[in-house]
């Protein structure tokens, strides 16, 4: 049994002008100890997927239309409030994009961390909590952890704040770390440090990692397995090396071709023509077909299934099963 199992998950937002199909039949199994990167562009549903794992999508308007999400065999969708609290920040730690908005500016770092600790380890004395905070800050390589506890968020740089949030995510001794665009708000040089830190923690603590980013470079630096999403579906799911060496899905190829490369100054990156579909009324068949260079008639009618292991791809036009045009 996989640690995290998502089966045929369909998530919709009931909004003005109808239902938005945010996730449309997601199948994803993550084994314990895996580090999985989820990559895709704005509106592909990658954050919604990560949030579904903790039932963090506001409901209403969000609604799981069908499917199952299980953690270690337990149905997350059926959990009561107490079990959900144990899951959030306990078994599954979460780090978000913007470190500024997730820290309360009027409380010291120490106070905020202690609050998280109190929620998950109620038996600790005050001194023990403080010691644990320092230990946590040390583990995210923040120097002079003790003095940091008495500082306010605005006294810290963006990178330091993100480290504090990672430390908070680790406070409940999680088995899984979900990081949603943890480096997007940071400078390039800091990005690398934070990614290295996350990769190091995952290896040292034996965590399972789910890293969400729009940036293939970021995902590639920290994950062994990459899942590419487009318009609410998974189009490719492969080991990192295989994905970079031999991308199969036309969308993945397009993404890679669009990345500017410092080492190839003469290579002009090409964009993917067209724009993302309206998820209120997504295209029939393969959701990528209106922008796809390989589109055939079958792509317009039949939804491709994710096939192949370990390199899975959902496309009619590639792989052993490819349909002749």
């Amino acid at each position, binding site marked *: 049994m996989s640690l995290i199992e998502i089966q045929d998950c369909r998530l919709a937002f009931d909004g003005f002008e109808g239902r938005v199909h945010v996730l449309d039949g997601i199948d994803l199994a993550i084994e314990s100890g895996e580090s999985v990167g989820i990559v895709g562009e704005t509106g592909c549903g990658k954050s919604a997927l990560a949030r579904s794992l903790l039932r963090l999508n506001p409901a209403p308007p969000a609604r799981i239309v069908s499917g199952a999400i299980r953690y270690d065999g337990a149905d997350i969708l059926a959990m009561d409030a107490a079990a959900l609290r144990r899951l959030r920040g306990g078994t599954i730690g979460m780090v978000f994009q913007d470190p500024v908005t997730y820290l309360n500016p009027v409380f010291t770092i120490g106070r905020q961390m202690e609050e998280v600790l109190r929620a998950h380890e109620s038996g600790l004395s005050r001194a023990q909590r403080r010691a644990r905070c320092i230990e946590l800050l040390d583990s995210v390589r923040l120097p002079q952890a003790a003095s940091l506890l008495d500082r306010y968020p605005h006294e810290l740089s963006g990178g330091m704040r993100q480290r504090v949030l990672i430390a908070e995510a680790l406070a409940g001794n999680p088995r899984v770390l979900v990081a949603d665009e943890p480096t997007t708000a940071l400078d390039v040089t800091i990005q690398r440090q934070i990614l290295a830190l996350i990769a190091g923690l995952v290896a040292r603590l034996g965590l399972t990692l789910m890293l969400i980013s729009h940036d293939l470079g970021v995902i590639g630096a920290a994950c062994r397995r990459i899942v590419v999403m487009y318009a609410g579906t998974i189009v490719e799911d492969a080991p990192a090396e295989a994905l970079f060496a031999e991308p199969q899905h036309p969308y993945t190829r397009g993404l890679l071709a669009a*990345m*500017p490369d410092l080492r190839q100054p003469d290579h002009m*990156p090409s964009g993917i023509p067209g724009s993302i579909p309206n998820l209120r009324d997504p295209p029939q068949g393969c959701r990528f077909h209106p922008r796809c260079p390989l589109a055939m008639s079958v792509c317009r009618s039949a939804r491709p299934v994710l096939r192949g292991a370990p390199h899975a791809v959902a496309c009619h036009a590639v792989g052993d099963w490819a349909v002749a045009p």
Partner: protein
Amino acid sequence: MIPLLELREVTVRFGTQAAVRDVSLALQPGAALGLVGESGSGKSTLLRVLLRLQDVASGQILMDGAEITTARSARLRALRCDVQVVFQNPHSALNPRLYVHDAVAEPLQIQGGLSRTRLRARIDGLLEDVGLGEEFLWRYPHELSGGQKQRVCIARALAPGPRALLLDEPTSALDVSVQAQIIDLLRRLRARHQLAFLFISHNLAVVQLLCEEVAVLRQGAGGGARPGCPGAARAGA
């Protein structure tokens, strides 16, 4: 050649702290200069200085060799048509209460002198320039994707007929596949309108696609032009 825009030993202070210290830099007509540096290095402050949105503590700003450091009112308004800006975040660069049509019309209306039909024709032309069709005219910004918004911002910047575009990380808030489209668009527009670019970015790979020269800002001070591209970008005193 006389630079289109030039900064001479410019220092900007916020309170007692210098955000930019003794930076010199020149943008030749038709050239494309990249300005890279980490956040907090003063890139955006420098851009605001060039736009005359930010006053300097010391130093000079020159345009076509004439000093404009303290130019005011009518003279400043005339200068402003020549230098236009595209901001980083297209989501906050468009007034949420204005249609695409009104956003692009704004600089033309400020300049004045266009009849209703000629105004409309000009707007249609500008939108076509940036690859947007007529169906976008009467949409609000929140009905557009990030890439489409940035195209509207570019159309708006082109409207007064500038000689230079200052681009403040115009692609960093966009998806990669869209980023490539925008870079391509900017390259084509530069060739067609003989524009000079000052391109601010933290991403060297993107800078190299658009610019012939690169200057590096480090903690508010110029760090010199990129090796191999000497000359025009004389950053640092």
